[in-house]
């Protein structure tokens, strides 16, 4: 089945429905969802917090609610004029680490000539974009620190048009809440509009002045130095603007949605 067929529909609802459907297949990771009490062996904490962590579902619901509050708090804290630090080329981490939910040799191979970036949702222009068209937009280069949710970080050099310029070019509703992406490796995520319009948020087409290699997300990745690594999707194939789709591959398993840095 062509999994991108719904993206062709000029309908944000279809986009959301399709994503929900994908989620349903992915969600039951029992081992992860039962994370709360099972491995908690600290007697003292069980006693002190007994009422809270008595029950898996209660605790998980409470923690998820707090994570939503943290989304809100981070949105308030986000200053669109604050830039992530940039570094000289000499500080680029080499080799830059590969990181994904699969092995490096499983990274998708995309045909550059046939590639078309799908655009849907709350946008005026929904025609797909080819790579030369994306490259025709003003190009920016930045050397920034990629911070992984695990704690490690690495400095890399990415170039490409600003996501904000692209969204304006397609006539996106800039008052919409979210910008979502879907990727060739079945990854998906979404970000807040304020971050999408941040001057350092790039549609990265190049890594270290050369087209992105497959392991770093050919043909395009979102490079967002104000967000953690899992909010920097690779192999992006579809971009959609929405007021409702605030989900993501890791976010749906418990990572914080905003994921800001």
């Amino acid at each position: 089945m062509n999994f991108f067929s719904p993206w062709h529909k000029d309908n944000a609802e279809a986009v959301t429905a399709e994503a929900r459907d994908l989620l349903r297949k992915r969600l039951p990771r029992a081992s992860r969802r039962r994370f709360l009490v099972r491995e908690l062996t600290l007697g003292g904490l069980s006693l002190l917090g007994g009422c809270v962590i008595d029950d898996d579902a209660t605790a998980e619901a409470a923690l998820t609610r707090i994570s939503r509050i943290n989304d809100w708090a981070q949105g308030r804290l986000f200053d669109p004029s604050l830039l992530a630090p940039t570094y000289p080329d000499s500080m680029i981490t080499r080799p830059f680490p590969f990181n994904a939910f699969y092995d490096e040799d499983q990274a998708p191979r995309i045909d550059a000539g046939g590639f078309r970036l799908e655009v849907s949702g709350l946008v005026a222009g929904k025609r797909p974009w080819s790579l030369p068209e994306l490259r025709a937009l003003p190009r920016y280069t930045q050397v920034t620190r990629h911070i992984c949710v695990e704690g490690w970080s690495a400095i890399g050099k990415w170039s490409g048009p600003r996501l904000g310029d692209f969204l304006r070019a397609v006539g996106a509703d800039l008052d919409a809440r979210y910008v979502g992406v879907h990727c060739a490796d079945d990854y998906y995520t979404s970000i807040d509009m304020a971050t999408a319009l941040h001057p350092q948020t790039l549609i990265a087409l190049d890594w270290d002045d050369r087209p992105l290699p497959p392991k770093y997300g050919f043909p395009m990745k979102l490079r967002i130095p104000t967000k953690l690594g899992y909010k920097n999707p690779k192999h992006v194939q579809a971009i959609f603007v929405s007021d409702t789709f605030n989900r993501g591959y890791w976010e749906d398993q418990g990572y914080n949605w905003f994921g800001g840095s």
Partner: protein
Amino acid sequence: MKADPTSFPPGRDGPPHPLWLRATHWINALAVLIMVTSGWRIYDASPLFDFTFPAGITLGGWLGGALQWHFAGMWLFAVNGLLYLCLGLSTGRLARRLFPVTARGVLDDARRALAGRLAHSDPRRYNQVQRAAYLFAILDLVLVGLSGLVVWKSVQFPLLRELFGGYDAARRIHFYGMAAIVAFAAVHISMAVLVPRSLLAMVSGGPRPRRPGKERAS
């Protein structure tokens, strides 16, 4: 006068530990326990050093769960800690109980303690070693909190980030600060067990001071 372990000379402070102090102390203990054990799990996802924490003593079950606990515990830790500092400063208790403290005094009291000659008869009066240790714990927790802000939001707190020497340095300082508070807790808990009266005082507020002409019913 024979020492009566259940009574103390009258003082202007009333019970050794007012309710707000006991409440913030125990909430802080819970918050630090959550932060440390969930932090260990987060550390394990990408260890800074050549060791990991055994999963059984960590909180969260996996990285995502540990992060949820850590960023929930963060609010408890921060709000309670700020409340403690505000009350400690505004009531003057912090200045009164933890100062003065001198290096000489700490050494003298440490020597006395090792010789078994350091009295704990009045829980309202901290000896110099206690003062130094409690100040260390407070300052360390402030450091852990601020370095944690940089690890969490290195872009949004540029001044703090530069003060800590960047993201990676802040991450290391955050870890060392954790190690320091765990070391403090190990000593602190041992002392509380050795001097159970101090532990009881932190639970119940401690024995009331004797008031002239009025017997306390208890």
